[in-house]
């Protein structure tokens, strides 16, 4: 057994079952009236739960009226928002406009099932991005910073800017090493670094193709040219399974080698994270 398995066994040994009378604190306090979409969201969720239970207990044997809210409509909304990678900027302009990335990904704790177009139904809940899209996916826009920086979601940009430039410098050096000599390279680390390079920067098409070639050459990486990402786009998938059994996939556009997203699947076969870049566009600096 590996160390994590041993550790889990130790945890079970040390664990105690909760007492039957685990004391629940009193939850009282001042209330604050909700406004806008959170109020509507909560009302919808609570109403749906309230209505569904009696519907399932329908006594006549007829088909019970169902409260239906699948993820399909939300995926369709993401597909509509996505643009053709062939029309995306081919490289990051050195001066002038910045490249703006619009990306959808699954919120933490949202475990999508394996079927495209039906994701996160268990955890579906109303959320909204800056542009008002409601659904189970979080949609963020970020800008690809100039060389030396990594892109980050807006609310953590300061933290990422403080940390990532050094990482990027290391990354470039290690990619050079990777290209010149794969012997002795940590394959998982190499896969992660190329993934990061593709995710966090927009390089010219020739460089992207080289990075894609580097991905495919890493020992243990399998390539599938007929794969689809979770909004249904045809992609080339580069997959690597870590020693812990976690399968990591990077999706690239076959024609342009643009980075289209990623997926991580646990050793138990559960998709724990997936993302899709919907759009790259040029925009003036803020």
């Amino acid at each position, binding site marked *: 057994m590996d160390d994590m398995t041993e*550790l889990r066994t130790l945890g079970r040994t040390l664990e*105690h079952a*909760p007492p039957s009378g*685990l*004391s*629940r*604190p009193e939850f009282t306090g001042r209330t604050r009236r909700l406004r806008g979409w959170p109020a509507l969201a909560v009302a919808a969720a609570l109403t749906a739960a309230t209505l569904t239970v009696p519907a*399932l207990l329908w006594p006549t044997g007829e088909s019970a009226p169902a409260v239906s809210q699948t993820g399909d409509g939300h995926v369709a909304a993401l597909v509509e928002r996505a643009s053709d990678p062939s029309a995306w900027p081919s490289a990051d302009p050195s001066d002038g406009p910045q490249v703006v990335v619009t990306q959808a990904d699954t919120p933490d704790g949202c475990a999508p099932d394996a079927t495209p177009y039906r994701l996160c139904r268990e955890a*579906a809940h109303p959320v909204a991005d800056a542009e008002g899209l409601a659904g189970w996916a979080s949609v963020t826009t970020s800008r690809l910073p100039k060389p030396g920086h990594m892109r980050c979601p807006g609310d953590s940009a300061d933290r990422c800017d403080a940390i990532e430039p050094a990482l990027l410098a290391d990354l470039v050096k290690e990619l050079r090493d990777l290209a010149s000599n794969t012997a002795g390279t940590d394959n998982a680390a190499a896969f992660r670094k190329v993934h990061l390079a593709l995710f966090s920067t927009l390089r010219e098409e020739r460089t992207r193709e080289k990075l894609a070639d580097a991905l495919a050459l890493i020992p243990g990486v399998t390539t599938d040219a007929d794969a689809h990402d979770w909004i249904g786009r045809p992609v080339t998938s580069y997959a690597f399974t870590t020693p812990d059994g976690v399968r990591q996939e990077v999706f690239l556009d076959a024609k342009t080698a643009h980075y289209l997203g990623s997926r991580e699947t646990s050793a138990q076969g559960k998709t724990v994270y997936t993302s899709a870049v919907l759009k790259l566009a040029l925009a003036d600096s803020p």
Partner: protein
Amino acid sequence: MTLLPTHNSSDNPDPPVPLAPDPPREPSDGALIVASRERPELFSVLFDRHSGALYRHVSRRVGPEAAEDVVAETFLVAFRKRGRYDPAYPVALPWLYGIATRLVARHRREETTRYRAFSRAHTSPSVAAEDERVVTDLTAVSAGPSLAAALAALSQGDRDVLLLIAWADLTYEETARALSIPVGTVRSRLNRARRRTRAALGVNPLELD
């Protein structure tokens, strides 16, 4: 209502067969927390959902007596901070684990004493086994004391990350959010902690990198 796919052939007149209706949808944790800002009593639903899992996790670290206090305080802190919870996260367990982990830090001495005591009490010579299952069980038992001693020797930050991932089954991203640290820090702390635990098991710690 979900429909079962049927053949596309035009000579098949059967209509789609309806499946059972979708199961009832419980409000997500995020929705409940938002709602509890208006109706505080709804927070008790969150307690009923997650207090058991939190208690089991915390009891591993600080024992049953302190665990009860830590769990109760975790929910009181969470209740006070519910106005700042981001409802974009439907499952609140990582957030609750983060609060509980910070409270466990106040019991650091009890925690390390607990691991060391376990290590001393369970150190015994291994026994020959007759089949693979027994061998596996014995291996687990014999590895426990070494691992417990290694846990006691870890820094608080490294131990928090390791145990949130190994015992609470949080992802790297969830752990980062729970502890308010970057994912890169989670990875480096986990790497460092696992080198120690692997060394305690007699595995070459460099294999991890």
